[in-house]
């Protein structure tokens, strides 16, 4: 079963890459952007058929490795 997780920076953490992307978009003519925050997306195929168990497993992975909870939040966005 595939589970996806999105890791994003917490609100108060500076994201210089997002800022540069924002400025570049502005330079390309995308003037309606308020803010860009860059994050990470993981697709994880686990040997588990129960959606709840698969989700729990990926949540554990997020807590222990994929996200650093000092600066990042994680969200498990879909299971299929």
């Amino acid at each position, binding site marked *: 079963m595939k589970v996806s997780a999105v890791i994003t920076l917490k609100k108060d953490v500076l994201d*210089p*890459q997002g800022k540069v992307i924002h400025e570049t978009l502005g330079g390309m003519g995308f003037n309606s952007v308020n803010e860009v925050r860059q994050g990470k997306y993981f697709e994880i195929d686990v040997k588990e058929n129960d959606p709840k168990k698969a989700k729990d497993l990926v949540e554990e992975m997020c807590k222990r490795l*994929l996200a650093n909870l000092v*600066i990042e939040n994680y969200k498990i966005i879909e299971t299929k």
Partner: protein
Amino acid sequence: MKSSVITFPGSNCDRDMDVALTKFGFKNKMVWHNDQELPKSDLIVLPGGFSYGDYLRCGSMASKSKIMHSVINFAKSGGLVMGICNGFQILVESGLVPGVLLRNKYLQFICKNVHVKVDNIDNTFFKNLDKKVLEFHIAHNEGNYFCTNDQLKEIEDNNQIAIYYCDQNGNTNDQINPNGSIKNIAGIFNKEKNVLGMMPHPERMIDQSLSGEDGSIFF
């Protein structure tokens, strides 16, 4: 004194550290990250470099390697552990020192000499220090120290800030801050002061004919 330097895949300052430790009389052993046991040591050093290619977050993979279980136990039982540059990143990822190291504020890899100010000499690492401002070398892309406000209050209350980026006279301000670190923090202790993580490389400052000798104070 016996020391051990841990080599991770992608470490590249491990041999420099070996040279520095040996020069100042340590009997040093190199330890591979996949080993489980540490040799009997008075000091463990996590060297600089780019362990695991800096994948995911700098130091995150190395912090989960086999030898780190032993390093964490060694630190928790009071043993001296020092993490330099990537080693500092491994220390924060393993939770041995608080906070995290973010991408440099201006997104540039920084490679230059800097001055750092030592405030707290009431610990094993700096106890023999006879001057307050030292010149060290930095070379990093992710050295922007960050922590939550609660963590900052705690580390300030416990005198855990080891060194600050400063000018040659010891003044700390935003202009002299190379990477955007909170409070110009360049290095930090754990609460018990037996674990030190710092971005600057003392092992590159041990010989006058290379670049300077301020690194000698550590060894």
